[in-house]
């Protein structure tokens, strides 16, 4: 795991009298899309916040590009669960604000052009001058996506970015993110509890046991061929085996494994499975 872009090394989150998760080890390689799946309460969002540098782990550390994380960085952009747009700025100003943080000396006109271009890539040219309150939920999240991609981060972190959207919008945005990620060969880490979303997007899917005391139970390698489209996903060979395996984990094994892990389970190398192969 030494050559991984991100290396999570034994992180834990403890509160007095309670351990949310501990002894978490995994890596994310350059250009890889990793999904973390687990039930509520296993500390998924905390894991993402630690990767983002917004929170510090109670134990362990995260190495990015050979350096331990000290705090948030422009190299790791976050797409938040709520869109987290500033309501007093227009869509364009929201993106331009992010750009102005990346390019400190860029003149205003250039920032505006770059912001427009970023919005164009997510199909929001017409909404550039609108405030978030004038946009639908899906459009707001698109602005959030445009903002994250605009600063060309080395890694993209997503915290259930589509969970607040209706099914149709969610599907469209999943395809959009899949396209943008593959275009940019973007390294990405995403938290979700939507199994199909994980299968569509991820190269590897990390499964966490139920909290408290959550652990990384196993790593599912997604062997389905790319490009994957939502509409044809279920026709790909191995899809059903993969989906069944993850669902089975979420429904029964996540609970059973929280009560007792197998004797040969190694926190540093959670078992890797390829149910779709």
């Amino acid at each position: 795991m030494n050559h991984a872009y991100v290396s999570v090394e034994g992180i834990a989150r403890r509160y007095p009298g309670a351990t949310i998760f501990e002894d978490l080890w995994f890596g994310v390689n350059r250009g890889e899309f990793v999904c973390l799946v687990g039930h509520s309460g296993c500390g998924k969002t905390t894991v993402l916040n630690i990767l983002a540098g917004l929170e510090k782990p109670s134990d362990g550390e995260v190495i990015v590009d050979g350096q331990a994380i000290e705090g948030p960085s422009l190299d790791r952009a976050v797409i938040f669960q709520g869109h987290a747009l500033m309501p007093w700025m227009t869509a364009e100003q929201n993106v331009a604000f992010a750009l102005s943080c990346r390019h400190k000396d860029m003149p205003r006109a250039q920032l505006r052009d770059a912001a427009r271009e970023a919005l164009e890539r997510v199909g929001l040219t017409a909404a550039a001058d609108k405030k978030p309150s004038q946009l639908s939920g899906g459009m707001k999240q698109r602005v959030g996506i445009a903002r994250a991609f605009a600063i060309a981060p080395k890694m993209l972190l997503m915290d259930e970015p589509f969970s607040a959207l209706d099914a149709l919008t969610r599907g469209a945005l999943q395809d959009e993110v899949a396209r943008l990620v593959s275009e940019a060969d973007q390294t990405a880490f995403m938290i979700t509890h939507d199994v199909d979303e994980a299968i569509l997007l991820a190269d590897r899917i990390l499964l966490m046991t139920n909290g408290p005391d959550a652990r990384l139970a196993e790593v599912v390698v997604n062997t389905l061929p790319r490009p994957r489209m939502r509409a044809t996903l279920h026709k790909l060979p191995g899809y059903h085996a993969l989906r069944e395996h993850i669902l089975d984990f979420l429904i029964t094994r996540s609970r059973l494994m929280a009560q007792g892990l197998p004797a040969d389970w190694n926190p540093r190398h959670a078992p890797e499975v390829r149910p779709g192969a």
Partner: protein
Amino acid sequence: MLIPFWRSSLLSLALLILFLGAWELALRSSAATGGSVVDAEYAALVGAAAAQGGQTPMPMPSEIAARLWQLLRDPFYVRGTNDQGIGVQIAYSLARVGIGFGLAALVAIPLGFAIGMSPLLGAVLNPFIQVLRPVSPLAWMPLALYTIKDSSISSVFVIFICSIWPMLLNTAFGVGSVRREWLNVARTLEAGSLKTAWRVILPAAAPTILTGMRISIGIAWLVIVAAEMLVGGTGIGYWVWNQWNNLSLADIVIAILMIGLVGLLLDRLLGWVAGAVAWQE
């Protein structure tokens, strides 16, 4: 149900006419029946107005209107220190409120910002704020007069003291309750603290800050009248007291009307600014 504006205005106007008419009629009828005859010696003492036996000193709306017209025809004359137009007096008061309020904003908004950002500083300053806030600003007047030794600046200081609290508390509250997720966005973008303060926290807290400013300007306009009555010299408050000494009640009614209208204008002005910085989720 949305009530059309013209209908409510028409009713307001009708109410006003009814009220003024009743006022006028009541005074006219009491004048007709003939009031008490004033003692001749007392009449000589208090002057011509009171000496006219049956006439009540309470003015009728028609008299007030005539006097208002007279005052507004030339509001900015200056004929010596004790005889200046009503416009000049209001301008003095507005200047004092403007300076006191402006200085208070310069202190309260940055300090409120610091308190909102630092819970420790907030906890340290809280006892002082809580004790000083309920003090009537006029209670500061003797201290101000003693230390500053200038009555006009003392009244500015009183305005400063009374406008500072709502702005301070509202700014601290607005800054302290900026959404965590916006701050997280700024952090992940590595926006510096100055940029975060200017582009994220200030606009997020602006509506709350403006509410504080609006409360402050209202209080300042209330207090300036009392402060000027106390220190004298110039200003609408002093003018009111002067007209009371002249037993010119029509002027006092006019002053009340003017104070109300200027207060309304000040509030509308800040309301307009508040509308400009308001945001909607």
